[in-house]
């Protein structure tokens, strides 16, 4: 009790800028804890859902309904031997999983979960661009992993992943740009607020579909999982990885899924707004749906062939997203009432 008062006292004496940094750090710590748990349970949910869809039971040994399975997985990965294959380039080999985990986690810094400055770590003016920059830097992780592993499968996986992510990032960014055009801001909270009467999914159906497709490709999940196609190239770029470094890749992947679900919910589905009482719960519900969606299509669709993937990205999605952008701009010019938030 006395200690608590002491802490408050110290906090009160701090200058404003130190307080701001402290608050940000605290929010970051909370988000980090929640996310790491969430990522673990995303794996659990995935295994359970897939099992259900395939008429199996899924993990059910550790704890009631297998609920402790993520904990068991993490413990297993942590206690495994930290090994480097003899032929790898150690520095880059270690750097690669770190990059993907860092970019995945940093992305959440700009995600607002409610209509309050307390419900977001840092509501950047250029939030959407920050997200795009992080996702484009995430590619380095895969390139370096593939390269530094010094193995055939890893290099092939790295090459495929790089080509795929660069191709789909374009359509993703362009479809988001139409949203920015309508909202008149790159700030995620502004974008969410701009959808107060009508969600952008109704005004931007093409953009939504393009983003949805590009999103799945960006996270390298089935049916776009050719970078790690296990029956061709073992496990792609993380073939040589094990123990905690492998866990970081895993973490990065699930972080990516959750982050992309947040972004699509905020950019197209009105964020925290919903019927009855708006609030963070609506956002979580939407995110949960998209996480489920990721798992759902994983069990439904077969893997695309490499050339089909490139054709889809460059010949269909990219022109479609550009068309969508032009249409949005034109409609905005002709019917200004459609885009009340756009800058003029």
């Amino acid at each position: 009790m006395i200690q608590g008062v002491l802490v408050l006292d110290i906090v009160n004496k701090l200058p404003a800028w130190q307080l701001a940094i402290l608050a940000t750090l605290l929010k970051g710590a909370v988000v980090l804890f929640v996310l790491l748990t969430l990522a673990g349970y995303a794996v659990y949910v995935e295994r359970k859902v897939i099992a259900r869809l395939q008429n199996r039971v899924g993990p059910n040994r550790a704890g009631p309904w297998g609920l402790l399975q993520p904990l068991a997985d993490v413990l297993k990965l942590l206690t495994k031997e930290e090994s480097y294959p003899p032929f790898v380039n150690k520095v880059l080999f270690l750097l690669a999983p770190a990059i993907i985990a860092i970019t995945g986690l940093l992305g959440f810094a700009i995600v607002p979960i409610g209509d309050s400055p307390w419900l977001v770590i840092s509501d950047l003016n250029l939030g959407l661009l920050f997200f795009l920059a992080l996702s484009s830097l995430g590619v380095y992780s895969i390139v370096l992993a593939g390269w530094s592993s010094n193995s055939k499968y890893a290099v092939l996986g790295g090459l495929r992943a790089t080509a795929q992510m660069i191709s789909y990032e374009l359509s993703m960014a362009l479809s988001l740009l139409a949203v920015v055009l309508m909202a008149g801001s790159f700030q995620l909270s502004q974008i969410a607020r701009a959808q107060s009467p009508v969600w952008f999914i109704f005004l931007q159906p093409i953009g939504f579909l393009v983003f949805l497709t590009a999103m799945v490709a960006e996270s390298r999940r089935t049916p776009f999982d050719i970078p790690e196609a296990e029956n061709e190239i073992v496990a792609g770029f993380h073939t040589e990885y094990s123990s905690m470094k492998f866990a970081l890749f895993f973490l990065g992947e699930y972080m990516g899924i959750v982050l992309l679900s947040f972004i699509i919910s905020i950019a197209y589905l009105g964020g925290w707004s919903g019927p009855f009482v708006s609030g963070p719960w609506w956002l979580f519900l939407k995110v949960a749906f998209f996480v489920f969606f990721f798992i759902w299509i994983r069990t439904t669709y077969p893997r695309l062939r490499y050339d089909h993937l490139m054709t889809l990205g460059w010949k269909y999605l990219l022109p479609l997203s550009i068309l969508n952008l032009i249409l949005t701009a034109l409609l905005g010019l002709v019917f200004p009432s459609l885009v009340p938030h756009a800058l003029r």
Partner: protein
Amino acid sequence: MTLLAVIFYIAAAVAILATGAVLFARNAVNAVLYLLVSLFGVALMMYSLGGAFVAILEIIVYAGAIVVLFLFVIMMLNIARIEQHKDLQPPTRPQLLVPVILALVLMADLGIAIYAAAAGVSSGKTITVTAIGETLYRQHYLGVELASLVLLIGLIGALHLGSAAWFTHQKEANQDGTC
């Protein structure tokens, strides 16, 4: 000298050193990493001048796309040939030391920038996205149009020089085109 000027000069120094190191790096992957550090330095310079938008575009376009393509090309080179060429092999640990140090300096610089932002030391002028758009599309519209022509020509030229007809005399080159 204001704090932002300090940030600017540190970032500029890192950018220049890293760019110089690109020229002298013996190893291709190493050179690319130096280039990456240099681009981040330039981005931080832009930020310290108030151009956050330009800074982030610098990262998205250059660091996120163009340099990745450089790495991509290095990876695409024939693996068998890489083993013979010393300058194409992955860099060793001492070789990575300098880019890491440069990157750390840059991170410290970023730390100062964060402090400056939190403490409210601003440059007094932030260049908004709207202002950039106005300048580009109103004042320099001819330049933008001409730039689009440059890109079109680049595309046509690359298409022409890179099209498959190049390999008509060596048939097997056409067959293992995919990866």
